[in-house]
């Protein structure tokens, strides 16, 4: 298998919890800059797959490559420093820190000054400015100095993405970025994602099928831990098996 040409590749990835197989032989390719959606019914192993790729879980078998480099045995933080960042389905933020503090923390870490005990943060203007840029990109500039816990839920979802983006990833894993957000606002979140620079490959889980078909260039359908099929939105929409299992016959695309 050629693993060098693509941003992310998995080969025969499996995850068992005891006797339960949650992810079974997943061979997956994410080209550079692709907007790729991962869909499937509840319990099909989507989040487990994200946790395996992000390094939160260790696979039972199989390998993963980031731009050709074997990352299977790297810790989560090592993967982030190599350009693989993720967000969480349930907000995993820093409640008493402000967005600017949280994002500055990520930028400082990426710039290699995260372990400095002596440097003054207040005087690290470049680092703060870069963090501010990222917040602007995610429409959070105005809320940058309010404690995270006081932000509206939709804003917190955007901060989830800002934290991952601040690591300057080549591959971004988004676990239901619009989960729990009212439909009018979920469009804003997905359009932020589609506005991301082209050199970032995005793999996202999303339940709203309309949004998936609007924003994804390719779609992978996961059912019971296996890849059922993969293709362009048009191919997926036309697939009778997908329609039967996942979309239901009434869906018109």
């Amino acid at each position, binding site marked *: 298998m050629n693993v060098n040409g693509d941003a992310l590749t998995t080969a025969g990835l499996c995850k068992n919890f005891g006797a339960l197989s949650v992810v079974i032989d997943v061979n997956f390719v994410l080209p550079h800059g692709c907007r790729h959606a991962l869909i499937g019914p509840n319990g099909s192993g989507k989040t487990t797959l994200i946790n395996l790729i992000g390094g939160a879980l260790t696979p039972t078998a199989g390998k993963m490559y980031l731009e050709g480099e074997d990352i299977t045995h790297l*810790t989560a933080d090592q993967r982030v420093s190599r350009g693989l960042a993720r967000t969480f389905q349930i907000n995993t933020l820093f409640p008493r820190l402000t967005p600017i503090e949280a994002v500055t*923390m990520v930028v400082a870490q990426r710039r290699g000054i995260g372990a400095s005990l002596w440097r003054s943060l207040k005087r690290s203007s470049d680092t703060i400015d870069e963090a501010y840029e990222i917040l602007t990109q995610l429409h959070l500039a105005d809320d940058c*100095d309010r404690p995270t816990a006081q932000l509206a839920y939709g804003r917190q979802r955007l901060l989830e993405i800002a934290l991952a983006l601040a690591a300057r990833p080549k591959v971004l894993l988004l676990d239901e970025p619009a989960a729990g957000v009212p439909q009018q606002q979920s469009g804003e979140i997905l359009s932020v994602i589609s506005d991301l620079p082209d050199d970032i490959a995005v793999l996202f889980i999303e339940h709203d099928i309309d949004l998936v078909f609007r924003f994804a260039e390719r779609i992978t359908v996961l059912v019971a831990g296996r890849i059922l099929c993969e293709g362009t939105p048009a191919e997926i929409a036309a697939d009778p098996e997908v329609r039967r299992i996942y979309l239901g016959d009434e869906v018109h695309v």
Partner: protein
Amino acid sequence: MTAIEIPAPAPVVTPQERAHKVFAFTSRWRWEEIAFWVVAALSILIFPTHLVLIAQVLITGLFALSFDLLVGYAGIPSLGHAAFFGIGAYTAGLLARAGWTEPISGLLIAALVAGIAGFALSVVVSRLTGIGLIMITLGVGLLLYEAAHSARGITGGDDGLSGINIAPIFGHFQFDFYGKTAVVYTYVVVFLLYLLARRIVNSPFGLEMKGIRENVRRVPAIGIPLRKRYMVVFTVSAAFAGVAGALLGQITQTVALSALSFDRSAAALIMVMIGGMGTLIGALVGAAAYMVAQDRLSDLNPVYWNFWVGLLLVLFVLFARGGLIGGVDRLIVWIRSKRKKS
């Protein structure tokens, strides 16, 4: 020509300026900090008969501060922090008994030994969180206490180490019977370490400590190596505690077994709770409040001291989570909002 008065436009603060202000604000000198250090300096002049108490307040404050770095900033709970205080105290005491009587290098060596002990503990506990951490640190604290208890040949056991002779500071300032040199020496050392702790919490590393406290699960997912950070936090916090212990050994010229006691670990937690967690100055204010109250109340009735501590603790946890410093901050905000209205 008549001058047309143009009203000056209200200064507009851009969001970007507000972003920078967040960092300037968190690292500002609070007036509580200035007040504490001024009052401490003045009390040395005003209460010449209480110099020993003042020095002990500062030393205990430094110990509570080291604990605040661990629990208040990095959110790492511990019930065995006295271990590092005791290691520092015995290191300084044994050094002096062995003939190494120069005080400042004694402090540095004590910091180093305590720091190494902190690092060693961090290697053991860096995979643990919550209750696991509390149990291990409690266990290590108790183990060390009993080890020192039974190693009479080295530590003097129950009798403690005595006859510690310390050379004059810089070869000049002799430790005197009234404790004048001791209290000034303590004040200067604790103040310098306070400045160092301020520097650390306002650094990028300090921000990562708060990140660990706020959400330990997210930290690896933004690229921060958690285990390495744990190691540095434990090492630094233990070194600070070690200096506190060494100071007490040097100025009292004795080291008692109580330097390692569980009571001391628990008291640090109480002081930080009363003063205000994650503020640094709260640790010192909490230590002062605790020790002065202990001094006054145990004069009245020594039996009831723990009753008052217990009551105070329950009230603070229920009604004043920010401690004394949090209360003062809220008071300031309230006064300012009143002023704005009128």
